[in-house]
């Protein structure tokens, strides 16, 4: 990235210019130059002014805001570049400078004719710049600024505006104007429209950079902008209304007009932006700046402050302080100070910056410019440090990533948050340099060696950091409840703790979309290659402070539905004719309102009882289903749980049998129930088996349980009816007697062979006989080789790995189980499989039934009672107790124009629309992919309704409805601005994991990389301002796409190491297919906590660090969470006190690496650490076993496997390498 950035840097500067030139640029340029901006900016104020303009732009901003979204995205992407670009944004200031600082040749250049030169020079950069600017900066600045600029925050707004702009995109509507305005620049289209704006941006950017660079050491400005962006974003969020304010901007309008204004604004925004963001919060400093700014309009002040924030662009701040010339110097110094203050907010804004990251390249350019870059680098770093918070943000994503990265990196480090950051800073500067354009071009892996080596390595701190993004999101969105009423609004990331208020759309805990803004046409969708999918977790458990879906009963007639498409009553139904009819939001069909449901409408056309009825006001609710919704039109029986326990030699010997029996005795008191005061009416049954099956009659009236042996496994049947499935409370004595006796009965067994197919058949038959749905818990130990249906042979053949035949290993060995699964689904028989293998058991085949029936597979390889007991029993407890529905059918209805075409998860489909789940628990997730079959309209957006018909654990038939509305966009930029990378990755992983069933793994990997490249290339081509090909530009919302995608590619399933067994791969493959976004996120990008930094006093967790070995300190202790495992890595030089606190021993050598739980020690540190571990476990659906890994220990290999940003020993690329590779791919696509 850095590399890229560098080029970008260069380009940005250059680019903007060209861009501007090409566009109104000239004009802008001219404007700029002429524009007061320049003047304003000329002095440092210039920047300020620039900012000011920003506000004005803000006005325009609104329009831009439209763009902003894009820009927002861009912002981030740009950010990478951003840094560089930031430079550019700074450029904005440059103009100012230009005037003033013309001395800064660059600045001057930009401002005036030089631009061309710049362009030329930065040919590439400019583009990037533009992009940067356009995307982030531009957008942000323009739009954001305006919007945020809103009256109140005029200045801040500006800065915010940019941000907001970015965000605003999300609220396109509001920004609608923006589009018209140049703001739109982001999208290619906009270009024309915005040409001016773009140019502005470009110009500004260009100018800024150049100028900025020169003046402030462009970096300052550039960064500054970036920060602003970030900040902007944050602002925008808050103050969408700000836009209006922007309107106020009109005054600024002139600036806009000048657009250089935009540019300036951009710049301004940037600088300001930072201020704004920061300003608002931090910016108390603002005032001072203002003062400085005073020179400039008030806005500038803020801007400045922002600028200062941008501290990156310290220039900004510096400017403020210095107001004019001070910038560089001031910037340097002030920024920092400012930054601190700023930082907080900026951080948030960083995101946007990230978008700018695209500019990464710019940095390079900047670099090239030498001065700028250098300046940038140099100053920024310091600033960054100061900026830390903010800059990081901006840079964070982008900045850090790219050129800015260095600086940002520094910032980040500086941010403290990132422990590493600080040190990084220093390197950061250099980093940018490292980001040689050349290096970028060079293939990633190879790159490094070739050019890079000679040049600088890409600085890992300079590339988008997941941690940064996560922390930003936490800071920005974690505090306020997320209200679902606004269509198309992207929710906080899964890593953020937030509260949801259901106001008409389903909570993100139920549904997450890859994009909250769908392209209107399939052409756009195809062009962008962004998957349109929703990850649906229909029965998700909500936190205690959120209200579970209300239950609605529409009486005997059943739920009210659309006559044609059968969609259920929901907030999208439009009541007409005084409430006598309603029009379906999905198919537009008009349906009569049944008399008992009639209600008058109020003056707005809403039903008077709208707020009293969950189905008219909420996104999620449940209907009571009538008998028409029941199988065979019969009210279902309460479901049953059947426990099927392998009692062959292996299972007995490893202690599983005894453990299960022992545990079940207590566990049976905790069967799922809806009302905790009432006993569960789920019935239970027991079967043990080896080569034959033993059923148990545990009827309450018996003195002793009775065993019934069925040896006819070829033709399974259930030997008893009465007494097999019993109510726990009634038969407790008999059941306990049975569970006591089972381990003893088989203690001396010599039977080693097992069957499997008949076991499931048995459970199925039992449920059939009892005419109910239910769940089977199968505890199984070995490959079923006994003569019986479903018999398997050992087909493990490592030689096939990596060949075209590898896919066969993931396919079931025989079709028997697929057919069986079908039967199970028909009956509503969900199968959970607990495996205790000592060798190959063919998970790929055994897992077919569980994964087709909504069940789960748990695998405990080399199970040992002592070490695995806790994990197994906790999994079992959780699995038995978790709330679930049975015999479910899920259907996703969509509004005209799109259609659910593909489904991923643990279920079975007998047709193309109905997802049949024999069982559906609170952790099961279905990913649904949508495709266009017509055009969507921006006005109505796209609606989806997910209806799940299921039998509750009390035997009630219910319908759970989740509604979701997203926006539609005619501009690609909007799409990119509203994506959610985590969800996209969830989709990609599921898609890829399914593809390997039918395609060679290599092809799957390639196509993933390819699609990702296309997405980014499309963005680059259509949404980012032109920049040099050497620049890597990432959309803000997707700046983590490469790193996460790399994690997917490196996962054991797609890229197995030599020590990964086929079973493990098949297991993980199946596991991921039903994961929700939260789990897939941590699964692919594990959480790594420096626990030695644990603050015992506070509830807060230490900020996670990136998954790279470089970031581990020998003196530290780290906790790594993968969703499946917990590792506690202990550095060899860890302090004795620390060790004493954790392990009770001060000596590193005395730590027992085989321990599975930490000793209970009476010190606050130990307590807190154990609490954390416990809380981690609580968050996951599966119990995570703790492994203590000592540095240099054998186990460390396993641990290192999860440091996903590093190269792994099976050949997986490091993050940096992969990013370079991705860049190359993109470049190829673009050329």
């Amino acid at each position, binding site marked *: 990235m850095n590399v890229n950035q560098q080029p970008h840097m260069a380009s940005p500067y250059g680019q903007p210019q060209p861009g501007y030139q090409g566009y109104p640029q000239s004009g802008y340029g001219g404007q700029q130059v002429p524009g007061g901006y320049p003047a304003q900016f000329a002095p440092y104020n210039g920047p300020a002014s620039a900012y000011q303009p920003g506000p004005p732009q803000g006005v325009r901003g609104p329009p831009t805001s439209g763009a902003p979204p894009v820009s927002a995205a861009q912002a981030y992407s740009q950010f990478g570049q951003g840094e560089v670009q930031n430079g550019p944004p700074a450029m904005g200031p440059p103009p100012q400078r230009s005037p003033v600082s013309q001395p800064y040749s660059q600045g001057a250049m930009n401002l005036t004719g030089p631009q061309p030169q710049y362009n030329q020079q930065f040919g590439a950069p400019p583009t990037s710049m533009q992009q940067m600017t356009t995307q982030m900066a531009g957008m942000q600045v323009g739009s954001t600024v305006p919007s945020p600029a809103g009256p109140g925050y005029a200045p801040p707004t500006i800065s915010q505006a940019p941000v907001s702009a970015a965000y605003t995109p999300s609220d396109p509507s509001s920004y609608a104007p923006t589009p018209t305005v140049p703001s739109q620049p982001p999208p290619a289209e906009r270009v024309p429209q915005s040409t001016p704006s773009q140019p502005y941006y470009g110009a500004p950017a260009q100018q800024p950079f150049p100028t900025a660079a020169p003046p402030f050491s462009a970096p300052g400005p550039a960064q500054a902008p970036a920060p602003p962006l970030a900040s902007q974003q944050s602002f925008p969020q808050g103050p969408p209304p700000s836009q209006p304010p922007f309107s106020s901007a009109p005054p600024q309008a002139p600036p806009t007009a000048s657009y250089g204004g935009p540019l300036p604004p951009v710049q301004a925004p940037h600088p300001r932006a930072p201020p704004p963001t920061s300003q608002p919060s931090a910016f108390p400093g603002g005032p001072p700046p203002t003062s400085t700014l005073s020179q400039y309009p008030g806005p500038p002040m803020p801007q400045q402050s922002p600028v200062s924030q941008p501290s990156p662009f310290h220039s900004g701040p510096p400017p403020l302080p210095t107001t004019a010339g001070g910038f560089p110097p001031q910037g340097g110094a002030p920024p920092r100070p400012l930054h601190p203050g700023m930082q907080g907010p900026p951080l948030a804004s960083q995101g946007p910056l990230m978008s700018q990251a695209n500019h990464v390249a710019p940095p390079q350019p900047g670099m090239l410019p030498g001065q700028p870059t250098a300046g940038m680098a140099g100053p920024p770093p310091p600033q960054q440090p100061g900026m830390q918070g903010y800059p990081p943000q901006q840079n964070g994503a982008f900045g850090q990533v790219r050129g800015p990265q260095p600086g940002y990196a520094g910032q980040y480090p500086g941010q403290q948050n990132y422990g590493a950051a600080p040190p990084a800073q220093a390197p950061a500067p250099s980093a940018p340099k490292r980001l040689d354009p050349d290096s970028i071009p060079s293939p990633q892996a190879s790159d490094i060696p070739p050019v890079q080596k000679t040049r600088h390595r890409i600085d890992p701190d300079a590339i988008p950091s997941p941690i940064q993004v996560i922390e930003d999101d936490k800071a920005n969105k974690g505090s306020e409840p997320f209200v679902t009423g606004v269509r198309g609004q992207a929710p906080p990331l899964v890593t953020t703790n937030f509260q949801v208020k259901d106001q008409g759309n389903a909570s993100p805990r139920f549904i997450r979309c890859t994009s909250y803004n769908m392209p209107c046409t399939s052409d756009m969708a195809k062009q962008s290659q962004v998957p349109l999918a929703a990850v649906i977790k229909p029965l998700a458990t909500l936190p205690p402070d959120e209200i579970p879906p209300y239950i609605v009963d529409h009486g005997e007639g059943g739920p009210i539905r659309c006559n044609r498409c059968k969609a259920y009553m929901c907030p999208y139904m439009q009541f007409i004719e005084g409430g006598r009819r309603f029009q379906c939001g999905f198919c537009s069909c008009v349906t009569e309102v049944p008399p008992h449901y009639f209600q008058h409408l109020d003056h707005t056309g809403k039903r008077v009882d709208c707020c009293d009825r969950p189905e008219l006001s909420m996104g999620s609710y449940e209907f009571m289903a009538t008998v028409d919704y029941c199988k065979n039109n019969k009210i279902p029986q309460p479901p049953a749980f059947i426990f099927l326990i392998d009692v062959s030699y292996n299972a007995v010997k490893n202690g599983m049998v005894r453990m299960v029996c022992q545990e079940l005795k207590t566990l049976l008191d905790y069967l799922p129930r809806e009302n905790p005061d009432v006993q569960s009416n789920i019935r239970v049954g027991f079967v043990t088996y080896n080569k*034959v099956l*033993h*059923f*148990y009659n545990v009827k309450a009236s*018996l003195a*002793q*349980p*009775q*065993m*019934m*042996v*069925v*040896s*006819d496994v070829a*033709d399974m*049947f259930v*030997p*008893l*009816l*009465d*007494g097999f499935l019993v109510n726990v409370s009634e038969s407790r004595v008999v059941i306990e007697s*049975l569970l006591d*006796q089972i381990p003893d*009965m088989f203690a001396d067994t010599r039977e080693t062979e097992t069957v499997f197919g008949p076991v499931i058949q048995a459970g199925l038959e039992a449920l059939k006989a009892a005419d109910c749905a239910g769940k089977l818990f199968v505890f199984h130990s070995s490959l079923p080789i006994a003569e019986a249906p479903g018999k398997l042979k050992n087909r493990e053949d490592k030689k096939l790995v990596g060949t075209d035949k590898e896919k066969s290993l993931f396919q079931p060995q025989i079709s028997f189980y697929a057919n069986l699964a079908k039967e199970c689904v028909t009956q509503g028989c969900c199968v959970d499989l607990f495996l205790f293998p000592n060798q190959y058991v063919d998970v790929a085949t055994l897992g077919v039934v569980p994964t087709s029936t909504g069940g789960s597979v748990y695998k405990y390889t080399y199970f040992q009672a002592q070490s695995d007991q806790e994990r197994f029993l906790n999994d079992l407890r959780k699995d038995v107790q978790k709330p679930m529905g049975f015999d479910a059918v899920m259907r996703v209805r969509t509004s005209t124009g799109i259609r659910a075409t593909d489904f991923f998860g643990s279920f079975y489909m007998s047709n193309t629309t109905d997802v049949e789940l024999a069982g559906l628990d609170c952790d099961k997730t279905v990913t649904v992919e949508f495709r266009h079959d017509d055009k969507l309209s921006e006005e109505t957006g796209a609606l989806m309704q997910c209806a799940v018909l299921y039998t509750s654990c009390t035997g009630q038939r219910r319908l759970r409805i989740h509604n979701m509305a997203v926006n539609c966009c005619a501009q690609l930029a909007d799409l990119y601005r509203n994506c959610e990378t985590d969800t996209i990755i969830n989709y990609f992983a599921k898609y890829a994991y399914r593809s390997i069933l039918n395609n060679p793994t290599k092809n799957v990997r390639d196509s993933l990389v390819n699609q990702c490249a296309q997405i980014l290339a499309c963005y680059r081509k259509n949404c980012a301002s032109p920049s040099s090909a050497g620049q890597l530009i990432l959309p803000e919302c997707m700046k983590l796409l490469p790193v996460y995608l790399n994690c997917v590619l490196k996962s054991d399933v797609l890229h197995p190491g030599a020590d990964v067994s086929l079973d493990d791969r098949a297991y993980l493959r199946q596991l991921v297919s039903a994961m929700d976004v939260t789990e897939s996120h941590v699964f692919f990008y594990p959480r790594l906590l420096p626990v030695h930094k644990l603050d015992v006093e506070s509830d807060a967790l230490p900020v996670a660090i990136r998954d790279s070995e470089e970031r581990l300190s020998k003196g530290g202790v780290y906790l790594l969470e993968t969703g499946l495992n917990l590792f506690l890595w202990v550095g060899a030089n860890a302090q004795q006190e620390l060790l004493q606190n954790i392990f009770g021993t001060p000596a590193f050598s005395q730590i027992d690496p085989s321990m599975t739980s930490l000793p209970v020690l009476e010190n606050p540190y130990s307590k807190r650490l154990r609490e954390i571990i416990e809380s981690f476990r609580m968050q996951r659906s599966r119990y995570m076993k703790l492994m203590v890994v000592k540095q240099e220990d054998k186990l460390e290999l396993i641990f290192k496997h999860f440091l996903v940003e590093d190269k792994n020993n099976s050949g997986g690329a490091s993050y940096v390498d992969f990013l370079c590779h991705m860049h190359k791919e993109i470049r190829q696509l673009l050329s």
Partner: protein
Amino acid sequence: MATFQEFIQQNEDRDGVRCSWNLWPSSRLEATRMVVPVSCLFTPLKERPNLPPVQYEPVLCSRATCKAVLNPLCQVDFRAKIWACNFCFQRNPFPPSYAGISEVNQPAELMPQFSTIEYIVQRGPAAPLVFLYVVDTCLEEEDLQALRESLQMSLSLLPPNALVGLITFGRMIQVHELSCEGISKSYVFRGTKELTPKQIHEMLGLMKPTTSVPQEAAASCRFLQPVHKVDLNLTDLLGELQRDPWPVPQGKRPLRSTGIALSIAVALLEGTFPNTGARMMLFTGGPPTQGPGMVVGDELKTPIRSWHDIQKDNAHHMKKAIKYHEALANRAAVNGHSIDIYACALDQTGLLEMKCLSNLTGGHIVMGDSFNTSLFKQTFQRVFSKDYNGEFRMAFGASLEVKTSRELKVSGAIGPCVSLNAKGPSVSENEMGVGGTCQWKICSLNPSTTLALYFEVVNQHNSPIPQGGRGAIQFVTQYQHSNTQRRIRVTTIARNWADAQSQIQHIEASFDQEAAAVLMARLGVFRAESEEGPDVLRWLDRQLIRLFMFHLRRSPFLQVFNNSPDESSYYRHQFVRQDLTQSLIMIQPILYSYSFHGPPEPVLLDSSSILPDHILLMDTFFQLVIYHGETIAQWRKAGYQEMPEYENFRQLLQAPVDDAQEILQTRFPMPRYIDTEHGGSQARFLLSKVNPSQTHNNLYAWGQEAGAPILTDDVSLQVFMDHLKKLAVSSSA
């Protein structure tokens, strides 16, 4: 010299043999002309309280094809210590142990009064008896309860060392493991799937122990345990026996997997105790409704097959079911295991299809209306009755070998036996009954079990037998005594040859009318079983016809009218195994009349015997009917018997009851006991049996005073005889 009557009686008492002819025509031609073949009824285990078994092995003829046992008819050279076989004339030296014999020191088997002698032989380990209960659980609760009690009671009747096993079935089949403690275990099979014996063995885990004997015992022990060890266990198990839990929808029969249950029982014993005496006792309360061997589907709207259906070839399952059960029966018979059927239900239970199980293996069939009747309870109890020695009246795994003089060959046997397919010089080519062999297997015997054996005189007319020549037949019955001893009973009989031309009067005189009637009836029944239809009657008509034939023609053994297929099967089953006396009763029921006019007297089985002031006691073997005449019934109703002054009336009423009790005490299976009166609905049992000398057609043509008219179109004996006479004349003409 004794009359033939006395001779016959004496022979029967001593040897358990009744011959149709006691002088044998000396050539094939003459024998054929006699119509009634040379044949005999043989009761192998006839109770002989005065016959102590000898404790050594029989001495056999050394000729490989003969192997006849030394008997009183053999010529013995005491000095040379040589004996000559009277069948093959082989001269055999006595074994060393006989060194001391002389004219005055003869072994028992040489003494004339020991023409029947029993040896106890020690061969192999003494195998315990095995009783395997196969219990239908698709019963009404009341029935099941009664059955449970009967079964629990039976445990106390079993020999303590006997092995006992339990299989229950309904929709599924459960083989109960009896050795376990704590959890009771059972192996379950589905009722619809036919499994090979090998599969069953595998599934029951009986395969492993093939290598060593002790293990085998251990394995089998899981399912078959000595009564004394599992008495309590099993009592509990039986006590907890539940009705088949599977729901029976409206309009359906319960699913009853009798066929598979039996196949598993057979396989279980086959795998564990081949060639050891064992009884499988099937208790069923309805027809098999699923799986192989099913007799009728589970739809109640399809009634179980009737004779009508069978004649119309409308009984879909019958042939398959019969074939299935025959195969099972043969497997069981090969291993010497017998199968009893205790079928108690108001409707048919599929005895027609299952009868071969018992017929071929010597098992009992008991048919009743409910398990909760004394008929079943006492009959079942009587299965375990003991003789004067305190030993069970049952024997197992018997094989009967017949040896004949050269002039005679054996054509076949009719009785509860299967052919062992032993060819030999004495096997005739003409088969009557189960032929083509000189050895039969009788898996289960009791003292009354009687076989009919048919012979053929093969001597040609042109090679006369010297005057005074005697033909001999030797029956060698090897069996497992209920005390687990192996025993061999040898009966040797001889009859004189007579020239039919010169000694026709003698031959006539030697004719045993009763035996002949039974023997012919058995042939008729055998044919009826295998051929069906009116042909049998016609065949019978062509044969010798006497009084018995009149009743035989009307008996349920040949007439199916008014009888269900099951009943016919049941009657025939009993008929082919009972001894002569009982058989005669079955053919021509006995009617006793009780009145104030004198002591009880047997009266004609004729409608004229039905008089108002008489009490009748009819014994048809299957039913005991006490019929109170019209007047008697009125008196009884008026309660005269309660009055002291009519003590005599009370006694009169009591007399037939006492007599009936006596019969009830001894008969197996218990007859149906009916107490009825003139005009009573149950009087039909009597009315259907008596000779309809008075019917509604001729009521007024005859004297008015006596008898009761029978509403029937059947011909009376008088008509029959008239007709017969006409025929006899015309045919001879």
